């Protein structure tokens, strides 16, 4: 059935009365996502995209039975909005906001782990199960339904890669934008585990980037546990050590997070890596047979 999201998933939009929130609510709904309501303190009673707006998540969840929420709130308010979702009984929260303080992300991650709630992001592009539903920015033009489980640190790069797959007739079971910060709720390792268990996912594609240890940690799991073929692309090899260009998390410190360390770890785990994004479809096809 894909992972995390399908056409039956009931989704709430937090911050729905912001221009970005209402625009995205309509885009998601048009795509087929089951948007059941929005939340915006003080704006309860309004309707946006044909669904009710509530003042609190508690009320919204009680009346709609939603299990997933996406936040269109500023980074400064992300922590409170996420905790509001957790306390209301949501089990998956998607946070696209950039510049969430890292001490907040660390605390949020801990609390959600204890509560058994999944966080996707922050600073991410959301997720899409093509042909069924999307929660975040992914659009129809870039992807086909298919059997490749895709995970990416970058939104824009994943769009470019998905287009390369589409050109060769390859599609995705689900695409998860894990986000461009070093500390994140759902990691590559989590995605690989979910895709490995998903009967509709045949192969996996990891779109990584220098910085942090996500690729290495996923590789350590893949080495002993993954049976499905996995292809990876790691971006950022020309970013100089110690420089921050692009994503906040895309930074090499000493020898931590280098392109080489990631490629070596992935190769050791049996993952095939692509030099350019154009090589990816062939590697996914090749690993098929």
């Amino acid at each position, binding site marked *: 059935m894909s992972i995390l999201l399908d056409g039956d998933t009931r989704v709430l939009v937090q911050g729905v009365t912001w221009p970005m929130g209402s625009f995205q609510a309509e885009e998601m709904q048009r795509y087929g996502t089951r948007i059941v309501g929005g939340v915006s303190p003080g704006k309860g009673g309004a309707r946006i995209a044909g669904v009710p707006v509530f003042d609190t998540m508690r009320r919204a969840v009680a009346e709609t039975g939603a299990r997933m929420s996406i936040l269109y709130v500023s980074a400064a308010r992300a922590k409170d909005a996420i905790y509001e979702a957790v306390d209301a009984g949501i089990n998956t929260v998607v946070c696209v906001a950039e510049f969430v303080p890292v001490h907040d992300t660390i605390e949020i991650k801990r609390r959600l782990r204890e509560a058994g709630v999944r966080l996707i992001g922050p600073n991410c592009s959301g997720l899409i199960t093509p042909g069924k539903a999307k929660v975040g*920015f992914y659009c129809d033009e870039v992807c086909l339904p298919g059997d490749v489980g895709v995970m990416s640190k970058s*939104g824009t*790069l994943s769009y470019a890669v998905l287009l390369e797959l589409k050109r060769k007739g390859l599609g995705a079971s689900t695409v998860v934008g894990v986000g461009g910060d070093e500390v994140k709720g759902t990691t590559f390792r989590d995605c690989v585990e979910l895709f490995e268990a998903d009967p509709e996912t045949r192969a996996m594609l990891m779109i990584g*980037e220098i910085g942090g240890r996500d690729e290495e940690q996923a590789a350590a799991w893949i080495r002993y546990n993954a049976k499905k073929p996995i292809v990876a692309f790691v*971006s950022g090899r020309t970013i100089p050590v110690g420089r921050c*260009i692009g994503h906040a998390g895309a930074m090499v410190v000493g020898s*931590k997070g280098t392109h080489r360390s990631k490629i070596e770890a992935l190769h050791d785990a049996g993952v095939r890596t692509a030099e350019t994004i*154009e090589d990816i479809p062939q590697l996914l096809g090749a690993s098929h047979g």
Partner: protein
Amino acid sequence: MLLFEYEGKAVLREHGIATPRGVVVESLADVEAARVSTPVMVKAQILAGGRGKAGGIRRAGDAVALRRAAAAMLGATIRDLPVRALLIEELVAAVEERYLGLMLDGEDMLLVLGRRGGVEVEQLFSGARDGFEVMRIDPLYGVSAHQVRSALEGLGIGPQWWPVYCAVAERLSMLFRQSDATLAEINPLAELADGSLVAVDARIAIDDGALFRQARFAELAKGRAPPQGIAARMQALQVQYVPIGGAIGLVSSGAGVGTALMDWVALEGCRLHSFVDLDYAIIGGHTEAGMALVLDTLIGDPGVRAIIVNFTTCGLRLDMIARALVKVLDARRRLLTVPVFVHLQGNRAASGQRIVGEAGYEVVERLGDAVRSATKAARGEHP
């Protein structure tokens, strides 16, 4: 944001960590007015490591030497940075100099103690851990004294020192969380003959994302010398712009795809002129102005041989981006002597491509086509 040494030391003192007595000066008149008693250390306040080797830290034995050192350093450029202020401090009679630092590593905090001060901690992540003890700490709980004792034991530092180290490390840990720090480093930390510890240097980095609730550091950030020239104009329009120096111009949105293009152009043997991300400019309502500034910068540089325009986006509408792009390109049609390759894919791509194509610009089908065509043109080959 990185704090200057004198700013970091003020924060340390507020949290009960001792520093040498000192005064900050910005002119020779300040030096006279401060009436410090010599000998002193004169330290250039720049946001870079390795100041000592670059002549940015000098000892002055008397008033004449102090004036000479101050005159030489103020207004000078050290490690490519202008010296606008000096910290003049009393000498510290250290019995030993150590390293003490806290830093984030993913979702953990590392407590690092080094037997010798003066080393650069980046070495730690390169595997050279000789002389260091590294304790992995839960940042939500902070440093606990026993972790400090274990590290001290590992380095062979005698138990008579343990209580003062524990106190300093615990205070640094409080500071770390309260200030939204990502790095708090005392290097060196001096052991004095009287059994106390003094922070001889301070390097503290604050999370930029947290400045909304760190009013004091936000104020310091506002007071920083603003960027000059092109960097200032890019910043005013919220354009992310990092000069690289190559022959391929980039007009693009998105951090991830920009990074990938930087790599891809390098695989073809070329370099980007600059890394450009117009995302924030577009969201901030500066679509046309941002594109225009980037294009004018590229046109104004004779080293630029080809331009890649790339918008691979789902969150932004390509029909709107295409209209802005055509307007900006049309206004510069006669100035554009180098080939421009436009790649538009994603949300409303078909109408975006039509708008650009009908205006007479070359729209390429694949991102790789843009890279190959531009790099060929830059190498002087005809695509």
